């Protein structure tokens, strides 16, 4: 004989010490039959969106929250009815409860189905869609499937006016509402928090990257066949790792709760990365050599690529998305001439990279064409004085304009 049991699924620990998670999108609805391990719901933790699979095979009875709701780990996430064939008596109470819940969801489904049938039922002659050729043409040109249109003419004939509603439904709405949930809510919170608490000041300097370009071209020509082409970014990160040693006040966190500044010996560089979910900041760790070992330019380049691709694909680990001590934000060709980046709290400095462009400049007393790039940086003026910020950027500029040294694996190249 068979019996129906009720299975309550609680939100599991999604890893890395999560205490709660936000519902992004349900993949099932009450009344659906799901198989074990089929996608159940997309949940967002602080750092990542995770797909949670169904723990059992059964019928969904209820769901624990709407998209945007936050659910604590251990709280009820979903309830399933499971039919099992067993020997012996069923659990009477459970079965009754499940039966009642199933009836309720079945009734709701029936109402929904009836509504669908009603909205599509068009009395037609001979089973064909009735519409004049001109109306068929209008529907075709408007991309309307006449099978979805209710006709108001004789014998259910679809008239030009009947296309109006379908056309309106097809047309993009004037205003689209998008709930601010998940990653987007997190981004919004952190950006407004940073702008609210930290008095930003911006500092812009131009860098002559003519030699850096020559070096980059040479490195690319010499690189292994399977190595991807180098961009400016690994050189900038490398230079930052070198110079920050002399500017510990810029490689710091502010711990507001304890009101202390945490100066970090290691340099972990956050790489601001555009992902389908929005802005994420994957981290390249120990660019200044945590254990006396410095990453070479190629290694740095692959590490930058690895963490940013992981972030884009939504498979970055929690520790790959946290712990940066300073952030670099670069939009490449979209970099513009100046930007005013917002700090990635609790950091106190962020380095913005603008686009590289050939400009007429005076170089060695002569008017000449040089390859120029601006650095637009923001600092937390509570903890970084203008003098130190300017000195840091000047040091960085110097390193980038004499780039040969950046190829060295030694930490300090002087």
């Amino acid at each position: 004989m068979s019996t129906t049991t009720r299975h309550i699924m609680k939100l599991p620990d999604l890893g890395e010490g999560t205490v709660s998670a936000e519902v992004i999108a349900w993949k099932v609805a009450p009344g659906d039959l799901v198989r074990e391990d089929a996608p159940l719901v997309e949940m967002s933790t602080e750092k990542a969106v995770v797909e949670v699979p169904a723990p059992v095979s059964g019928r969904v009875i209820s769901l624990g929250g709407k998209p945007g709701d936050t659910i604590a780990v251990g709280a009820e996430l979903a309830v399933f009815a499971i039919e099992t064939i067993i020997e012996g008596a069923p659990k009477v109470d459970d079965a009754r409860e499940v039966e009642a819940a199933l009836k309720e969801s079945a009734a709701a489904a029936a109402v929904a189905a009836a509504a669908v049938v009603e909205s599509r039922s068009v009395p037609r002659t001979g089973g064909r869609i009735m519409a004049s050729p001109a109306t068929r043409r209008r529907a075709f040109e408007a991309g309307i499937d006449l099978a979805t249109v209710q006709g108001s003419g004789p014998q259910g004939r679809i008239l030009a006016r009947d296309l109006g509603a379908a056309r309106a439904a097809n047309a993009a709405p004037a205003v689209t509402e998008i709930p601010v949930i998940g990653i987007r809510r997190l981004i919004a919170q952190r950006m407004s928090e940073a702008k609210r608490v930290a008095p930003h000041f911006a500092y812009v300097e131009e860098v002559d990257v003519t030699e850096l370009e020559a070096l980059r071209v040479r490195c690319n020509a010499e690189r292994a066949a399977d190595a991807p082409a180098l961009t400016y970014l690994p050189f900038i990160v490398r230079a930052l790792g070198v110079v920050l040693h002399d500017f510990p006040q810029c490689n710091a966190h502010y711990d507001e709760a304890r009101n202390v500044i945490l100066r970090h010996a290691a340099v972990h560089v956050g790489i601001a990365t555009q992902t389908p979910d929005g802005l994420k900041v994957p981290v390249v760790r120990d660019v200044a050599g945590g254990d006396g070992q410095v990453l070479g330019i190629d290694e740095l380049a692959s590490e930058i690529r690895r963490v940013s691709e992981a972030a884009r694909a939504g498979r970055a680990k929690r520790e790959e998305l946290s712990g940066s001590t300073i952030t670099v934000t670069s939009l490449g060709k979209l970099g513009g001439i100046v930007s005013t980046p917002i700090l990635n709290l609790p950091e106190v400095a962020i380095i913005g990279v603008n686009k590289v462009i050939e400009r007429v400049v005076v170089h060695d007393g002569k008017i000449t064409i040089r390859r120029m790039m601006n650095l637009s940086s923001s600092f937390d003026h509570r903890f970084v004085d203008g003098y130190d910020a300017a000195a840091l950027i000047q040091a960085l500029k110097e390193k980038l304009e004499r780039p040969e040294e950046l190829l060295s694996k030694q930490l300090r190249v002087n």
Partner: protein
Amino acid sequence: MIARSMNMVQALNSAMDIMLARDPAVVLLGEDIGYFGGVFRVTDGLQKKFGAHRVLDTPIAEGGIVGAAIGMAVNGLRPVAEIQFADYIYPAYDQMVSELARLRYRSAAAFTAPLTIRTPCGGGIRGGQTHSQSPEGVFAHVSGLKVVMPSNPYDAKGLLIASIEDDDPVVFFEPKRLYNGPFDGEPDKPAQSWSGHPQGEVPEGYFTVPIGKAAVVRAGGALSIITYGTMVHVCLAAVAALGIDAEVVDLRSMVPLDTETLTASVSKTGRCLIVHEATGFAGFGAELVAQIQQRCFWHLEAPIARVAGWDTPYPHAFEWEYFPGKQRVVRAIERLMAEAA
């Protein structure tokens, strides 16, 4: 060029007068057209002016008239034959179908037959079954014949000159109810005159109206009425009675057919009514329906409608029940516009 008010009889007479003078190859032949000047007076005075060798009276033998005219045409003349009533044209049908229409094809264009056959057609004159027929469809069906039918004096003169100048045979139908004035299908109203009608103002000299070109006689957006001959005026009266924004197209030529004008009109309005006086079944309107649905199908808001003579011989009695008059056209327009789209 000086224009003066002419009725259709005078306009046709003027066309032949001009062509007889311009081209010595032009000759007229037919029953009672010379000494008498024609039963409708269309050739009045022409024999006296140009002589009996240019304007010939013939025996009552339509096959002979057309057969002789074909011989003249093949041998360098440009004859204009009159068949006194279209109802009498059938004895000549064999000559027209088997000889006239095929000469160019049969001789690989070694011979052409620049022959115009004029014939009064249509009803509305209490002429009964032997003086009222509209047989244009049976000629439009024959490959090799051009078929035209003017609806007013201006077109009549211009089209007749173009027909005479054409190197191929043209069957030229003259709606006899329009000879003396436009006719809106209301027999009890006093007869109207062409005097004062814009299309009754006809240039005195030479001009042509091109064969194969329809005329939009009333522009409109609600529906297209495709018609020709007497029915042009009936349709205009029906449109005026309804106060509807109809487009009325006067074909003027059935063969060759101005499909371009028809397509433009019906594609614009999406609704089409075809009106002719001839019987409906297998009539010329059926060809129009086929041509229009082929070209305008995706613009059609409603099935193409037809108003035509009932499928009986033209009656002696009950002519106004038979004749597709204003009321029938009005009802057809109302039905067509009531088709929800």
